C-alpha cells in the first residue's frame, strides 16, 4: 500500500478518536464564537470588519490545538511509538497528523462561518479566495502545532507553548485591528506573521477588498510560509521524534 494511504489511515483514526476532546472544542469553537458574539452585541455594524480576523483566529486555534494536543497526548501514552515502529516515512506521519488537524480546523471554522451566515447574514464576495485562505491556513497552522508538539512532553506544556506564540500573533496580525491601522514600527513585524497573510486572504474572500495591493501578495506569502513550516516540521521530526 502506498504511503499516502497510510497517512490517510492515521488521519482517519485521529479524527474518530480526538474530535470530541473538550480542550479542542473549548479553544477551537467556543472561544471565537463567544468573542464574535460579544463584538456583535456591542456594535452590530462593525462585526464584519473583525470577521476575517476572528475566522482566521478560529482556524489558528483549532488547527494548532488539534495537532499539538494529539501528538503530545500520544507521546505521553506511548502510542506515538507505534507510528515510529511501523513501516512509515516520517513525512507520512507528518502528513497524516497534519491532515487530521487541518480537517479539524476547517470543520470548526466552517461551523463558525455557517453560523455567522445564518445568524448574522455574513456573505462571501470571492468564495474561491476565501476557501484557498482557509485551506492554506488550516495546513499551515496544523504544521505549526506539529512542530510545537515535538519540543514538549506534556499536553499543558504544548498549550502553554502554543499560546506563547498565538497571542502575540493575534496582536500583530490584524485580527482585531486592521493591518493598515497598526503602528508603523509594528507593520514590518506583521509581514513576518503567517496569520497576517491568512487574514488578508479571508478579507479578500469576504469583502473583495484588502489592505494589500493584490491578493497574490498574501497568497504567495502564505505558500512560502507553508513550505517553510513543512520543512521545519520535517527537520524537527527527524531530530526529536525518536527522543
Amino acid at each position, binding site marked *: 500500500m502506498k504511503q499516502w494511504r497510510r497517512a490517510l*489511515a492515521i488521519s482517519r483514526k485521529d479524527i474518530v478518536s480526538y474530535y470530541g476532546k473538550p480542550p479542542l472544542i473549548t479553544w477551537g469553537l467556543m472561544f471565537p464564537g463567544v468573542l464574535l458574539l460579544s463584538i456583535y452585541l456591542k456594535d452590530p455594524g462593525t462585526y464584519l470588519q473583525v470577521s476575517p480576523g476572528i475566522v482566521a483566529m478560529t482556524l489558528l486555534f483549532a488547527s494548532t490545538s488539534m495537532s499539538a494536543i494529539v501528538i503530545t497526548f500520544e507521546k505521553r501514552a*506511548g*502510542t506515538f*511509538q*507505534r507510528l515510529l*515502529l511501523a*513501516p512509515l516515512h516520517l513525512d507520512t506521519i507528518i502528513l497524516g497528523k497534519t491532515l487530521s488537524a487541518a480537517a479539524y480546523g476547517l470543520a470548526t471554522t466552517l461551523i463558525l462561518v455557517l453560523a455567522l451566515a445564518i445568524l448574522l447574514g455574513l456573505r462571501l464576495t470571492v468564495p474561491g479566495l476565501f476557501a484557498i485562505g482557509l485551506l492554506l491556513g488550516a495546513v499551515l497552522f496544523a504544521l505549526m502545532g506539529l512542530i510545537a508538539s515535538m519540543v514538549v512532553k506534556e499536553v499543558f506544556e504544548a498549550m502553554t507553548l502554543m499560546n506563547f506564540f498565538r497571542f502575540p500573533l493575534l496582536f500583530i496580525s490584524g485580527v482585531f485591528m486592521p493591518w493598515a491601522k497598526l503602528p508603523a514600527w509594528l507593520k514590518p513585524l506583521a509581514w513576518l506573521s503567517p496569520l497576517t497573510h491568512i487574514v488578508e486572504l479571508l478579507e479578500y474572500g469576504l469583502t473583495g477588498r484588502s489592505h494589500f495591493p493584490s491578493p497574490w501578495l498574501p497568497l504567495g506569502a502564505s505558500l512560502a510560509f507553508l513550505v517553510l513550516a513543512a520543512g521545519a516540521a520535517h527537520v524537527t521530526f527527524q531530530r526529536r521524534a525518536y527522543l
Partner: protein
Amino acid sequence: MASANIIHVTGLSKSFGSLKALDNVSFVVRQGEIFGYLGPNGAGKTTTIKILCGLLPRQSGEVSIGGLDIAEEPVRVKQRLGVVPDESNLYPELTCLRNLDYLGELYGLSRAARRARATELLGIFDLTDKKATPFGALSRGLKRRLTIAAALVHAPEILFLDEPTTGLDVPSAKALRALIQRINQQDGVTVFLTTHNLFEAEALCHYVQIIHKGQALAAGTAQEIRQRVTGRKTLEVTFDGPVPGDWWQVPGYRGRPPAPVNGRWHLETAGQELHQVLAFLLVRAEAAGVKIIDLEAGGANLEEAFLAILQEQRPGKEENP
C-alpha cells in the same frame, strides 16, 4: 530448525552522555529460533531492541536484519518486524478489533486481509469475546496478549518481545509463554526475547546471550551456559527435622549461602568435592540423630550460571560469606 542468520550485530555501541549503554556488543540470531537476550535491569536490553527496531540511532557497529541495514532502509526493515515494547501501548480508546485493523492499515494490508488476520489473531489469543472492548478497559494480562497479537498483524518474520511477561500473574505468564512457543513453532517466526526471568529464558529460548552493563558476557544454549560454571553441582537435602545452621560450613561449599526452601536445604559445591560434602553431612546427621529423607544432586541451572557469570564480572565482591 535454525538455519541462516537473520540478525547480525557486530560491534554495536551506544552512549547516553557519559553512560555507555552498549559497548561493542556482537551476536547473531538464526532464522526460526527463539533468541534470549538476558541481563539484569539496566544491562542494555531495551537499548539494543530500540536500535534494532529503528527507534534509536547507533553510535558505531553494524546491524543487519535480513541482509538490510535499518539505518539505511528503515521502511523495508520495519515491514519485516513485529515489536512488543515493555509497556503495552496500543490505543486505549480503540476496541481490540479496531486496534488490530488500524495497525494492519499502517503495515499496508488490504481491508479483507486485515479483517481476516484480526479475526484469526483474536481467536489465537483467546480474545474473540473482547473484540468490541476498548483496549484501555482490558486487564493487564489481556492487554499484553493483544499487544503481542498487534505485533503479529502483518505476519512479521521477526518478533521482538521486550520483557513480555513482566507484571503478569503466574497463569497469564504461563499462557503467554505457550503462545510465544506456538508462534515460533507453528508460524516459524524468529523471536528476539529480552528478559531477566531466567526460568522463562530456560523454558523458551534455543539460544541465549547474556549482557551486563552494556557488555556481552556469554552466549550459547542454556546447557552451554550452564556448563560455563565448570563442574559446579547443586545439592538439595531434606532432613526429617531441624538442623543447626553451622552444618553448612562444609569444606566443599561454594556459591550462595544455603537456605531452606520448602523444607529442603539447597547448596552448591564443586563437583569433585561432592563425595566429601556428603560424607560430612552423613556424619553430622548420624551424631545429631536426624535422618536424610531425600537427596538430589544436579548441575547448575541457568539462574545459577547467570549469577556466577555476573559474579565473575565483579572481582572482590564475593557472595559466599
